């Protein structure tokens, strides 16, 4: 985005968000980590050096700060991060920012996230704290705030949640009323769980003007009537500050309104969407770092006169970690590539088009958020298990990682809310005629009527996996069709069905992203060990995903249909989940051996 060119007239050249469920794409059309350019790699390296040299040596002290509420160490490190450019990636050059492309931003969040709770402080500031101004501020607001936020002179927080409204963010009770002079809005209310509240200079506060119109304001810490509660006693991310923000008759100049009155939801939802995008990179970095600790430990720890890493039970865990990280990494950077492409010609200061571009892939962002946070949960949990009793001790790094990982399933929209959003957005796009979902469902039904075809699977690499992906998409569509048929407009009340559909859709996206990356490597870099690793991870992942999808479909179909219809649909699921199973024991062992060899994630490194 550094050299803005005239915008293309149409976005037809880009795959539609959510279209992965309906069609196949060519491996050459997806972005994969192997495509990082030198500049992106160097930026990642600098980020890694910053974390290794400045943050990690201070981890213990960072994690103690919440006890005194003195976060000056975090503030100092954020200012150091600002000095090397880590706070200004999203900010337009016009306002002193770097305008990093979206792939690069994901890479930065991947490497920052190796700093545990500190990355929540940094992300809270650069992300949800700064984006509302970058994307919804007036030119005056941007010129006033962005240079200070990019340089770390001011630090920001985002105050949406309240004690009584979390998932139901629009149910906020904080109220704003214009004073008699018409110069200030008077804000009253309490915000809950506000990251960075302990030290932020400005807060993006969501509230209702006159108790009705959802809106956002920029509130300075030093305005009269602003205070914060005590530090929350959290399970993890101890190095991040989390407090209530208390607003008592706070006079906020009316120039501090962000966007329009009554349009605050646009700010809130767009920023959450961007947050999910960043989280997709973050979880990958966190998981790789845990895998590094685990692989090393498994090689060193001996029981029964052997390193525990030589036992199949441990190899299974490590091999599975590699496969899941690979799947998440593949889909996160695939999505990064999609967003990068759609924004390639967009001016960094053209907020409307940027948000529209990212919104196009909101479904993919929700998938990354849910899938990524659960992948991280798995990796952290099995890391503790591999460490045995030592994993349960705070003397070793995985206990903290385990506690820190948990928040990712809760914030940026809980995983339930995101699972509900995925089919919601897909169906809405279908209704609006943007995605031919119903046509695709019809095609599957027609195919069923025509009876099974006995096409030979081609003898090319991953041909069998490709067929499995095509077929699993049909299962997803079959479920979608049956659900819409049964519930129509009332489908939104059937959360178990929606969530089952989401689980299948997510697995499909992960399978396909894994497959496309492996195939692309196979086509371009046949002899490299990376290619062998990617093929193994893809096979492990797809082998199990097909089984999961089949099971989920079989579980939910009896809710959707009955009698002959049900019987036909179950037979269809059986047909579409036919996959010649592979020896995943050998493949996981191979992946584990590779993880031991490189002492961490084998498929890719900067």
């Amino acid at each position, binding site marked *: 985005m*550094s050299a803005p060119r005239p915008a293309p007239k149409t976005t037809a050249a880009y795959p539609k968000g959510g279209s992965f469920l309906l069609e196949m794409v060519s491996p050459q059309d997806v972005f994969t980590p192997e495509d990082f350019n*030198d*500049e992106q790699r*160097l*930026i990642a*390296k*600098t980020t890694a*050096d*910053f974390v290794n*040299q400045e943050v990690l040596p201070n981890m213990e002290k960072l994690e103690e700060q919440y006890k005194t509420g003195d976060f000056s160490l975090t503030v100092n490190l954020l200012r150091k991060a600002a*000095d*090397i*450019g*880590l706070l*200004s*990636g999203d900010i337009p050059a016009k306002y002193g920012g*770097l305008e*990093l492309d979206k792939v690069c931003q994901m890479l930065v969040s991947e490497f920052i996230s190796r700093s545990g709770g500190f990355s929540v402080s940094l992300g809270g500031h650069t992300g949800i704290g700064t984006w509302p101004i970058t994307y919804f501020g007036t030119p005056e607001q941007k010129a006033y705030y962005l240079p200070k936020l990019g340089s770390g002179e001011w630090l920001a927080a985002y105050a949406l949640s309240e004690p009584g409204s979390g998932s139901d963010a629009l149910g906020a009770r904080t109220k704003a009323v214009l004073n008699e002079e018409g110069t200030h809005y008077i804000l009253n209310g309490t915000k809950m769980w506000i990251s960075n509240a302990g030290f932020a200079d400005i807060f993006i506060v969501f509230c209702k003007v006159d108790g009705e119109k959802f809106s956002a304001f920029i509130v300075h810490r030093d305005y009269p009537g602003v205070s914060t509660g005590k530090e929350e006693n959290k399970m993890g991310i101890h190095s991040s500050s989390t407090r209530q923000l208390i607003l008592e008759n706070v006079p906020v100049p009316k120039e501090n309104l962000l966007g329009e009155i009554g349009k605050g939801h646009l700010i809130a939802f767009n920023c959450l969407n961007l947050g999910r995008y960043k989280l997709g990179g973050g979880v990958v970095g966190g998981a790789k770092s845990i895998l590094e600790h685990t692989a090393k430990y498994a090689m060193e720890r001996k029981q029964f006169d052997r390193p525990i890493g030589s036992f199949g039970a441990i190899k299974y865990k490590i091999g599975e970690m590699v496969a899941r990280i690979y799947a998440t990494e593949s889909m996160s950077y695939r999505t990064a590539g999609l967003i990068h492409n759609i924004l390639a010609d967009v001016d960094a200061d053209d907020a409307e088009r940027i948000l529209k571009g990212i919104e196009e892939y909101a479904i993919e962002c929700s998938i990354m958020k849910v899938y990524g946070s659960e992948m991280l949960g798995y990796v952290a949990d099995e890391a503790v298990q591999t460490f045995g009793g030592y994993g349960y001790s705070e003397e070793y790094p995985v206990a903290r990682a385990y506690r820190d990982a948990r928040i990712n399933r809760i914030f940026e929209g809980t995983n339930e809310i995101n699972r509900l959003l995925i089919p919601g957005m897909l169906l809405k796009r279908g209704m609006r005629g943007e995605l031919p979902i119903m046509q695709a469902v019809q095609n599957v039904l027609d195919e069923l009527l025509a009876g099974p075809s006995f096409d030979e699977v081609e003898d090319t690499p991953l041909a069998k996996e490709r067929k499995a992906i095509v077929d699993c998409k049909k299962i997803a569509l079959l479920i979608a069709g049956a659900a819409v048929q049964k519930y129509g407009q009332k489908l939104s009340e059937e959360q178990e069905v929606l969530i089952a559909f989401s689980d299948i859709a997510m697995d499909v996206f992960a399978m396909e992203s894994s497959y496309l990356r492996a195939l692309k490597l196979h086509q371009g870099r046949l*002899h*490299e*060990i*990376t290619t062998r690793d990617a093929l193994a991870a893809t096979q492990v992942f797809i082998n199990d995903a097909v089984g999961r999808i089949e099971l989920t479909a079989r579980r939910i179909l009896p809710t959707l249909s009955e009698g002959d219809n049900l019987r036909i649909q179950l037979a269809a699921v059986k047909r579409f989940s036919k996959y010649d199973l592979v020896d995943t024991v050998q493949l996981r062992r191979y992946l584990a051996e590779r993880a031991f*060899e490189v002492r961490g994630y084998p498929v890719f*490194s900067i």
Partner: protein
Amino acid sequence: MKIAVCIKAVPETDTRIRIAADGRSIDRTDVKFIISPYDEFALEEAVRLKEAKGGQVVAVSLGGDEVPNLLREALARGADEALHISGDGVAVDDPLCVGKTLAAALKTLTPDIVFFGKHGVGGDNQQVHAIVAEKLGWPQVTVVTKLEIGDGRLRAEREIEGGIEVVETPLPAVIGAQKGLNEPRYPKLQSIMQAKKKPLVIKTFADFGLTAAEVGPEAAGLMITALRLPPPRQAGRKITGDPAQQVGELMAALQNEVKVI
């Protein structure tokens, strides 16, 4: 001041090296190249010198397609321009040919001072900077841990066995940087992004008036005939039993297997 720094691309230090089919070189698949670690000290010192005294830093590297990436990194770390001398036709395994080529290139750059790492990690020949100094007829100071630049002269501290030696030479001179000379900084995102706007030119040995007879394979005084990996380390063995048994077993092993007693 005009400052030159020569950097070498070497396999990442923890890369698992495999020998190529010819038995004389390394298999480059899966190998990642980095700036040789001692060259990082050289580069950092060059940039600090520029920051203190003003001037220009040019980064120079001889080699193949692994080089441009690392020269970009040098630009991101503060060099102002970069010169890639193509390794095509140069006997790059022979320190003399490499030294001759670099010296010819440096002559055209007319620097006031040239920085090298004290040796290139991997090949470990420790010759190139000395050869370059000889060919240019300039003084050289090796294993430098501290450097001060005065008016037309430099004062350097060298690490020697059991102590520090302080030397002075006139400029221009060639410096071999040792660990401890400085603490290299990582580049800021701002400078990484500016690096792509800085000039990186590629030249061949012929551009410096050299001929294949001078620096090509036929000129090589040294040729690598074989490359072998060290034999894998043998697993340790635990001696068990009561103290008397342990002593017996240990003595036997030291006498008969290791043959040190």
